[in-house]
């Protein structure tokens, strides 16, 4: 830009400033009104409505039903219960196939191949037992539920139901000082927290978006459902007669998920009254007409945009995590592996809050992906108790199908009912996985808020498990 142009620019800007102060403050409204008035006039000329209103009544009837004070909530719960049930039960089969393919078939072939090539044991241990196996776990556990949940969610979105959900839940979130659209991002979080955090883009106000991001972790993501289901079956389902076991453990898991939703409201309420104070922004919510969803289009875009994106981020983190898990249990210092040293170090704190050192270490090692917590816990327990006959050696994650063998192993590791209950609570209330933390950093662009999002739930988790342990010990004596 030339010098004369620069002075010209400053002149324009100062003229604008002067004119603005002369015109007063309602200029913005005047401009908006001028646009609205013109639009109204043109629309009046162009649109005619011969005869009576011919609006189809199906939309109206549906709306009256799904946003009704009485039926709105039950219908919503029913619909989402069906969606979760489809996700959990439908994902088991393909998850099994993937595990069979990646863990039971390809893994031994890779292992033998590496051994046959004469590679040093630590190299294939690190690459195959560590990195490959962790990634295989993450893919086989995460991919099927996401590939079911996201398309279902997108279909509901496409049909036009989600704005009605936001409409139903708006008053609750508003009371907590959050945005009504957070209803949607929380639901997305049940599928995957990283996806839920990305979904907060629909919230315009930065303050409310931050609340939605910070509390998304309390939506129990599907990486944590397997932990919940397994521990509930082992420790809570076994308290009642066998025919009630399935139902009681399912109720326990749902109870934990509901506790997560309650925590979402409590933490949002607390945040909006302390560090994130501000007005609840009003937003106009359009209830668009219901439209038949386009099924193929939805499948394509939800798999490309959501599933693959989230899966990729998870794989990127699972690789180094697998390496780390393998290294800690295979590098010895003074005759014992790093993992054993760390477990001894964490044990006092773990036992104090009603958990144990193995669980704490597993949560640190499994920060990259919640789905490897259970395999890591089992592997570390075997390492500590010196049990023989299960697993495939130090640093190799595994899963057990046999419940009796499993409970025997955990009891040998010193687990009690309190350990089980607190593990379920801690699995709900702890730091988000590194994929989510990374996503939070990407979305907020702030190291400060990312740190808060990571540490706040851990602190809360320790507080809750400590209190439960305290009360438990008082009652149990």
């Amino acid at each position, binding site marked *: *830009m030339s010098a004369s142009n620069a002075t010209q620019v400053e002149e324009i800007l100062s003229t604008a400033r002067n004119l603005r102060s002369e015109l007063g403050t309602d200029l913005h409204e005047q401009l908006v009104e001028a646009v609205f008035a013109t639009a109204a006039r043109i629309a009046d000329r162009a649109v005619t409505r011969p005869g009576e209103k011919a609006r189809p009544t199906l939309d109206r009837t549906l709306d009256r039903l799904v946003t009704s004070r009485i039926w709105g909530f039950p219908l919503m719960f029913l619909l989402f219960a069906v969606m979760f049930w489809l996700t959990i039960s439908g994902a088991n089969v393909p998850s099994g196939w993937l595990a069979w393919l990646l863990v039971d078939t390809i893994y031994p072939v890779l292992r033998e191949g590496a051994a046959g090539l004469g590679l040093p044991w630590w190299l294939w241990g690190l690459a195959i037992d560590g990195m490959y196996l962790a990634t295989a776990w993450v893919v086989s556990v995460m991919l099927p539920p996401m590939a079911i949940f996201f398309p279902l969610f997108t279909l509901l979105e496409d049909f036009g139901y989600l704005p009605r959900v936001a409409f139903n839940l708006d008053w609750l979130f508003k009371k907590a000082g959050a945005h009504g659209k957070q209803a949607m991002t929380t639901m997305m979080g049940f599928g995957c927290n990283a996806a839920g955090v990305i979904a907060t883009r629909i919230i315009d106000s930065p303050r409310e978006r931050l609340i939605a991001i910070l509390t998304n972790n309390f939506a129990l993501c599907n990486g944590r459902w397997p932990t919940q289901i397994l521990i509930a079956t082992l420790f809570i389902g076994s308290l009642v007669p066998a025919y009630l076991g399935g139902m009681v453990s399912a109720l326990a898991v749902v109870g934990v998920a509901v506790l997560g939703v309650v925590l979402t409201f409590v933490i949002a309420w607390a945040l909006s009254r302390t560090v994130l104070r501000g007005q609840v922004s009003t937003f106009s919510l*359009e209830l668009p007409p219901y439209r038949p969803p386009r099924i193929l289009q939805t499948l394509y875009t939800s798999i490309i945009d959501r599933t693959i994106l989230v899966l990729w981020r998870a794989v990127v983190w699972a690789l180094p995590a697998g390496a780390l898990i393998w290294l800690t249990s295979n590098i010895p210092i003074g005759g014992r592996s790093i993992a054993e040293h760390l477990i001894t170090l964490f044990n006092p704190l773990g036992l104090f809050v009603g958990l144990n050192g193995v669980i704490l270490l597993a949560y640190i090692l499994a920060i990259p992906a919640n789905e490897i917590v259970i395999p890591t816990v089992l592997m570390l327990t075997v390492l500590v108790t010196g049990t023989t006959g299960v697993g495939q050696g130090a640093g190799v994650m595994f899963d057990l199908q046999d419940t009796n063998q499993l409970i025997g192993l955990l009891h040998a590791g010193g687990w009690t009912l309190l350990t089980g209950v607190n593990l379920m609570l801690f699995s709900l209330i702890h730091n988000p996985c590194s994929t989510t933390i990374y996503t939070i950093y990407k979305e907020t662009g702030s190291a400060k808020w990312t740190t808060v999002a990571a540490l706040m739930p851990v602190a809360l988790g320790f507080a809750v498990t400590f209190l439960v342990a305290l009360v438990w010990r008082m009652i149990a004596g």
Partner: protein
Amino acid sequence: MTTPTMGATAAGCAACPVHNVANLLKLGVTMDNWNFVVGLAGNPNTGKSTVFNALTGLRQHTGNWPGKTVSRAEGGFEYHGHRYKLVDLPGTYSLLAASPDEEAARDFLLFGRPDVTLVVMDATRVERNLNLVLQVLEITDRVVVCLNLMDEARRHGLQVDDRTLVRELGVPVVPASARYREGLDQVLQAVSEVATGQFVCKPRRIQNEPSELKRAVADLTTRIASAFPGLPNARWVALRLLDGDERIIQAIRKGELGELGSVSPSETATTEAARLQVVR
């Protein structure tokens, strides 16, 4: 290359559809192998994505707007021997830059200067959708309106007269039902006519401000027009300055807006390269 040809090319550049390559690059749009850029705007729930998918098929690419956490999609199509790049802007109700979505859409229209902006309207909600169309027309004059969801309008017993809209807005208005692929050919035809200059838009600009404001706007518009000759939306810039829009003040200071009015020598070189590529 000889001097006379150089002159001819440089003069042709301002008229060339891709002379804004540098700004488009900043917005993450590469112009390799494309003849025209088309921005796709519209309110949410107007079937904008349906139009986008119908026009581009599976030749699309999703990502983020540079520096923003607003997702965007790009795709392409070919029509009558020209290659068009279609950039899907966020669905917004206005362009007042109140949210990151609106800001991304507005910045693209303002600094990216697409060759054509295709605005998708919901035929069952004409008045509210016109708010956005009118705001788009303030920024750019090369606009095609796709009056979508005509099937729903019929179902609701509404008659929308597209010819009245053409007269009032001064740009092509094409009735369509993208879901059933009705009217999409006519949309393509209108887009190509505006892109190649066969149809010259005479967009409506808002007139009914209070007289005091009108005087201030006129004064400022004259000054801006003389500082940045060739700027197509001096009046809109004047309004934004009067409203104290920091982003626009910054754009003027940095010369981002100046680039729009005239082509600087360094830019001519890039543009020429891009132009040659396009011609080849």
